């Protein structure tokens, strides 16, 4: 590795951004707790993010002051609940620059969004021999729904490989994308490697041949400023809980003309216009896909999460994460026994760093660091094909968000050095 000739960013004069992000930590009550007697250092935001007090209080206030079912009652509470619920949908639409609020479908999570897409669009449109193109770096949630679809329709799943540097091998596009490819489903940002994929380029190539593009943006929308219209994709899926919101809320965004033609997957209340004893007609978008009482309180909480992210500024969040990732890569490269995965350039990746210690299994590292209050992920990250490609059973992973700081990375690096001494003792 190149010797460290630049001044570590931590020692540089404080910038406006750093001051802003130092204050942000105050908004996350959980960061004040300790774990095994040490202050919590939370480095697993790629699994789920922590929640600011505004989100926690919004959910609590909803139950204290408003709680009623939506789209039903004529009384004040129901009207207010509906306003809050639909207001959150409008916030999501604005946040990702959707052309139409009706294009935002609430689900339970990214996984459910992709399953909805596969079952609704896929069952309607795919025939035996049609092809679904995925990539070698997908999370299981963007693999298995397509396997299920392929089993039911006789469609074929293919994948685009990755290069050794952790980026998609676009040179092999031509051999994997064929005239039978009907949809390309690709992760926006790898949850293991942090790689930011060239979605615009993929969209351009797929659309040229009439194939659709779905984007698993579970790790994208929370960290990058995403404009779905500029991105050009046909579907984008993401989860509230990875972007400061509560668990139990996901989003499927799709272009209106596509969603209009897709059949509902779940039937029940709220998704119908009329029902007879033997038949029904469907409600308008987006409710056609939202059968039953939705997760109202958490959707409202999600609205508060979006307010928070907008106030912090997605561009500033991105700069902060690039700075942290740069610093972390620099510090981690100083440790000889570490192997780091993913693109070298912090600009080409999100704040996710997977790594392995030459002589310490990630599970042992995870346990050791946990005893010092440092929470990292250890395992296959629900991406077993990628693990196979990396030649590993498992990796350790540290991931960052707007509330992390340089001290968190110092704690990680100190812990890794200590772990080396602890497990290397004779």
């Amino acid at each position: 590795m190149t010797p460290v000739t630049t001044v570590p960013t931590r020692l540089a004069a404080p910038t406006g951004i750093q001051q802003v992000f130092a204050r942000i930590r105050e908004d996350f009550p959980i960061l004040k707790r300790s774990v095994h007697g040490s202050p919590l250092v939370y480095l697993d935001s790629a699994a789920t993010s922590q929640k600011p007090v505004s989100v926690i209080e919004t959910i609590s206030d909803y139950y204290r002051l408003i709680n009623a079912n939506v789209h039903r009652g004529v009384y004040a509470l129901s009207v207010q609940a509906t306003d809050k619920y639909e207001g959150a949908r409008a916030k999501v639409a604005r946040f990702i620059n959707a052309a139409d609020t009706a294009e935002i479908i609430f689900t339970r999570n990214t996984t459910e969004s992709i399953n909805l897409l596969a079952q609704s669009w896929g069952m309607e449109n795919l025939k035996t021999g049609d092809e679904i193109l995925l990539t070698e770096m997908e999370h299981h949630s963007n693999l298995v729904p397509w396997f299920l679809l392929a089993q039911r329709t006789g469609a074929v799943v293919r994948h685009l490989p990755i290069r050794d540097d952790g980026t998609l091998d676009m040179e092999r596009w031509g051999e994997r994308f064929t005239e039978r490819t009907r949809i390309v489903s690709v992760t926006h940002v790898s949850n293991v490697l942090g790689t930011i994929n060239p979605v615009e380029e993929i969209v351009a190539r797929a659309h040229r041949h009439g194939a659709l593009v779905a984007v698993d943006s579970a790790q994208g929308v929370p960290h990058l400023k995403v404009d779905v219209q500029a991105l050009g994709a046909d579907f984008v899926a993401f989860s509230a809980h990875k972007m400061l919101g509560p668990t139990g809320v996901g989003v499927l965004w799709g272009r209106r003309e596509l969603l209009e033609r897709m059949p509902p997957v779940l039937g029940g209340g709220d998704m119908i216009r009329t029902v007879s004893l033997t038949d029904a007609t469907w409600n308008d978008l987006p409710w056609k896909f939202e059968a039953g009482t939705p997760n109202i309180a958490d959707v409202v909480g999600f609205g508060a999460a979006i307010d928070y992210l907008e106030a912090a500024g997605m561009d500033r969040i991105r700069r902060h994460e690039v700075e942290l990732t740069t610093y972390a890569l620099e510090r981690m490269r100083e440790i000889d026994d570490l192997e780091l995965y993913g693109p070298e350039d912090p600009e080409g990746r999100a704040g996710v760093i997977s790594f392995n210690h030459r002589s310490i299994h990630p599970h042992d590292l995870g346990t050791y660091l946990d005893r010092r209050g440092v929470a990292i992920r250890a395992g296959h990250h629900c991406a077993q094909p990628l693990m196979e490609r990396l030649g590993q059973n498992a990796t350790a992973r540290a991931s960052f968000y707007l509330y992390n700081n340089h001290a968190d990375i110092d704690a990680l690096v100190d812990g890794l050095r200590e772990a080396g001494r602890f497990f290397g003792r004779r």
Partner: protein
Amino acid sequence: MDGDRHDVELDALYRDTVLDHFRSPRGHKTLDRTDVERDGYNPVCGDKITLSVKLSEHGVEDVATQCKGCVISVASASMLAELLPGKSREEALQLAETFKRMMHGSPPPEGCDIGDLDALEGVRNFPVRVKCALLPWMTLIDALKEAETNGRKAGSTTTEEKGTT
């Protein structure tokens, strides 16, 4: 480790005996004959163990293990390979049962020779890691049961304990 923090529970998890087994796993060898072979997977982390057993007339003659995993699973497999040779089938299953109960909080019965397994006692305080310690033993139980019903066979086991304990 001057200046590093000492942590009693961590020291109890990673005792010197455990690290020694991890560094020189006793089962890393090739058997001249394998009667039963079984793979064990820990679905939580993707770790894998391959257990090869050479059977004798009344039980286990020798055991070899190939284990790519954490300190706990490799050490546990090594201890298994050290303890099993010469045991009858019943003794082997009994030992596996004793160790399983030990990981769930019950001390081994008086007079029961558990070899170095007592060094893994500290794992009990780390519930997530109990699966790591049990992986080789769950694989062994399935291997022996399969050997009885089907004769020589290869198969696989996961650490999901189907509704037990």
